[in-house]
């Protein structure tokens, strides 16, 4: 080894040591601060050590739940909005922020992402069939009874890694909240609503078991069931049948154990059964027109409380989607043309899809569909708003665009009583900007998550690449026409 390398090594070691020591010191300091102030414990790890009493005064406020307040005040205490209005009273303990020239929006909600879950760096291979992660051994399933690609018991809240660097980059882009979902397989797991503050995982969880994801994946292997799309559909159908059989059988057996053969224990049946009982929202893939029709048909056949995700061809089926009354998660990672490909290989059908996909939200608004946006594999969160802007250019009203990232996802996910708009009593999740949210030049200045303040600095990097495709996300190839 050369001498310069040795020095680098020593330097790295020293810096590492200093960091470790300072982290050890930070925690006791924060705790000491809390003890002195008598505030509640949830100030958490490092930056957000200040007391959670703020008032943003004299700002333009966009509540979403009501008309814009051109000049008003938002008051927060202990993570809750305590007052909103042109003349809201500011209590003495609040730190006052001058809102002149600033606009306050509700914190944005990303309605489908893997941010916060470990394994982000192990991107799943692009393409339609995504099996279990690379490390898993190949298991051959000989039929539905082997429960292939099935892990519904994985709950995002239980796997949350608050240290995931993507959390900060999402927050810097204005997203205070997300529906975090496990990825991989036919039943990847249950999604949780997470607030992107820097705290202990438990304090970040808004609701742990909100959605049950389904993706009609194949084993990727001719020898293992299911090897076809129709096989995956048949499998999920059998799972719902088995689950309902088990729920009934368990009830009968529990009441009369003598004389009856016991129903076998199947973890999938138990977990899916609990999800049905708790009225979790079942997510069905809707990656193209065929899948949209299929989602509508299966939700009806299986009598489940379901939403569809993807929906980039929704512009073509906005009436049918409205008639189904199913909520929709629209993937704003619009399909992109491969500019290096041979133009002769591109079909008119593909071109129409690429051209029309961003018009889907406007079409859905017109027919009264309840829909929300999700990032769908976008790795740089600043691109999320850029892509929403494309939908606005294609005819979506900015008001509806904002709703699709605030009150709509809150409504669909059952937390609209406490999130999704700036109203007294709701969670203090806010985004403060120096202009209109959908203007390219606008900068996000401050983000509040659960009433904790995060100043956004301009030189902040967009965050490391991550955000691999998950069940609700498109591959880079986009939708197959």
């Amino acid at each position: 080894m050369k001498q310069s390398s040795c020095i680098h090594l020593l330097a790295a070691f020293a810096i590492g040591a200093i960091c470790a020591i300072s982290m050890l010191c930070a925690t006791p300091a924060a705790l000491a601060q809390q003890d002195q102030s008598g505030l509640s414990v949830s100030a958490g790890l490092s930056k957000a050590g200040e007391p959670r009493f703020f008032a943003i005064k004299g700002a333009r406020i966009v509540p979403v739940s009501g008309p814009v307040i051109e000049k008003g005040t938002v008051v927060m205490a202990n993570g809750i909005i305590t007052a909103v209005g042109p003349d809201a009273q500011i209590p003495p303990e609040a730190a006052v922020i001058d809102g002149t020239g600033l606009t306050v929006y509700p914190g944005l909600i990303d309605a489908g992402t893997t941010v916060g879950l470990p394994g982000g760096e192990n991107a799943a291979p692009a393409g339609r069939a995504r099996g279990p992660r690379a490390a898993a051994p190949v298991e051959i399933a000989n039929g539905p009874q082997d429960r292939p690609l099935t892990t519904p018991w994985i709950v995002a809240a239980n796997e949350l890694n608050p240290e995931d660097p993507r959390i900060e980059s999402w927050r810097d882009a204005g997203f205070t909240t997300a529906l975090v979902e496990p990825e991989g397989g036919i039943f990847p797991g249950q999604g949780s609503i997470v607030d992107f503050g820097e705290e202990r995982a438990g304090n970040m969880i808004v609701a742990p078991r909100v959605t049950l994801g389904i993706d009609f994946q194949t084993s990727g292997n001719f020898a293992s069931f299911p090897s076809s799309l129709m096989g995956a559909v048949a499998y999920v159908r059998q799972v719902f049948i088995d689950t309902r059989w088990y729920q009934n059988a368990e009830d009968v057996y529990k009441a009369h154990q003598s004389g009856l053969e016991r129903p076998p224990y199947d973890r999938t049946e138990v977990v899916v059964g609990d999800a049905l009982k708790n009225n979790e929202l079942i997510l069905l893939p809707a990656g193209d027109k065929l899948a949209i029709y299929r989602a509508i048909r299966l939700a009806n056949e299986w009598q489940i409380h379901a939403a569809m995700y993807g929906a980039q061809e929704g512009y073509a089926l906005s009436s049918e989607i409205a008639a189904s009354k199913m909520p929709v998660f629209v993937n704003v990672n619009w399909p992109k043309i491969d500019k290096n490909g041979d133009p002769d290989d591109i079909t008119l059908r593909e071109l129409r899809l690429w051209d029309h996909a961003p018009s889907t939200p406007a079409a859905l608004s017109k027919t009264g569909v309840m829909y929300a946006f999700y990032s769908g594999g976008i790795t740089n969160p600043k691109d999320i708003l850029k892509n929403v802007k494309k939908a606005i250019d294609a005819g979506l009203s900015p008001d509806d665009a904002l709703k699709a990232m605030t009150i709509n996802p809150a409504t669909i996910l059952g937390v609209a009583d406490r999130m999704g708009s700036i109203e007294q009593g709701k969670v203090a999740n806010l985004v403060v900007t120096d202009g209109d949210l959908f203007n390219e030049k606008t900068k996000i200045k401050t983000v509040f998550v659960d009433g904790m303040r995060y100043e956004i600095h301009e030189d902040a990097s967009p965050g490391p690449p991550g955000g691999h495709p998950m069940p609700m996300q498109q591959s880079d190839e986009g939708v197959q026409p």
Partner: protein
Amino acid sequence: MNFENSKMHALRLIAVLAALAILPLAARAQDDSGVTLIKNATVITITHGRIEHGSVLIRDGKIADVGTDIQAPAGAKVIDASGMYLMPGIVDCHTHIAVDGDVNEGSVSVSSMVNIKDVLNPYDINIYHELAGGVVIGNVLHGSANPIGGQTIVIKLKYGAPPDDLPFPGALPGIKFALGENVKHSNFGGPIPRYPETRMGVEETIRDAFTRAKQYQKDWADYNQRKAAGEQNLIPPRRDLQLEPLVEVLEGKRYIHCHSYVSDEILMLMRVAHDMGFKVRTFQHVLEGYKVADEMVAAGAYGSTFSDWWAYKMEAYEAIPYNAALMTRRGVIVSVNSDDPEEARHLNQEAAKSMHYGDLTENEALRLVTLNPAIQLGIDNHVGSIEVGKDADLVIYNHDPLSVYAVVQKTIIDGRVYFDRAQDIAERAELAKERQELLDKEINEGKPAPRADDNENGATKSAKKPKKSHQATPETPQLDNAEIGGAR
């Protein structure tokens, strides 16, 4: 018209005029269920011979009248088919088009739980190509990877309609069986991924599946009986999606379409069917059917075969193009199918081959692709011939359909034109323009791209047309067209 007296005459005239006054509005309001008159064609009815200078009246998607002297009601759309030939639309008894994803669930020996109906794709370009070949109905089958494959469905080739509009209303569902080399993975190379590996294994798989199905049937019958008797605290049997279609077969509610080649396996399945108490509806391919035609007739089994494919694998070695004719002469109801989206575009010619190979008459030949497959699929009450009351599923050719020169001009399903050759040609320029504009917009960001040299590669992936217009031979929008080969 005969009138008793002039007063009645006047009243009737008023009634007729009143009806006519209403009719045009009705015809205009509903595009599909209006009135159409196809006139002055050679009408090939299949069941009642040919009618020279004949006409067919269509109303509300059904054939309302057939004859030589039909007047078009006011407001009716009139198709002048002078010099043309009108025939029932072709029924393809073995196809794999219109399927989203893999057509095989080959991972397990018995994949009866999967259903083609879950993955129908009405946007498959092959549907459009086959309409251009005169096909109106397809028996969409699971592949031949398993002894017992997935559930199958009969569709009308309604290109672009919602998936739920494709299934043929009222047609019994089917299930695909397969025997022989494909099932045993004989020709795939590499290790066999799954049982069975032998012919005896294939037979055992089917016997075992039906044994389990019968037990399943009994378990449910027992449970229902006990429940009906008022017994409490019963746990029902589990519903098993794999066995339920087999129970339907036992109950005669689902047709078996069995891919088969050599005579011993055809006989084997008939024996198993006899033992286990079910029927085989059609043997598909059945290339040695000519050897066991009498047994097929005795078992009530139909045959759906190729016109002249043989010797492409061992089990096709003794296939002969006389198969269809020989089976027909022994009394089997025979259809000729495609099993291939290209072959399906000229099934009229495939039917004609049995005139050369086996001396079938012209009508017997055309029956192979019209009424016979309709009978096999249990839909002959609705389609397969031109008769009053049947569905208006028709095709117009510019020459006798048995002629090599015949080219489809229009294909009609439920009274609506789903393929119109003249219209297709007329729209090509507009579609090419749209494509180029979108390409410019998406790739070149608004600047027109330098045009590449005309590419003769006619691989058709675009929505309706080949990507590069074959402007070399502009088609005149006449119903007569000699250039078949140029347009791909």
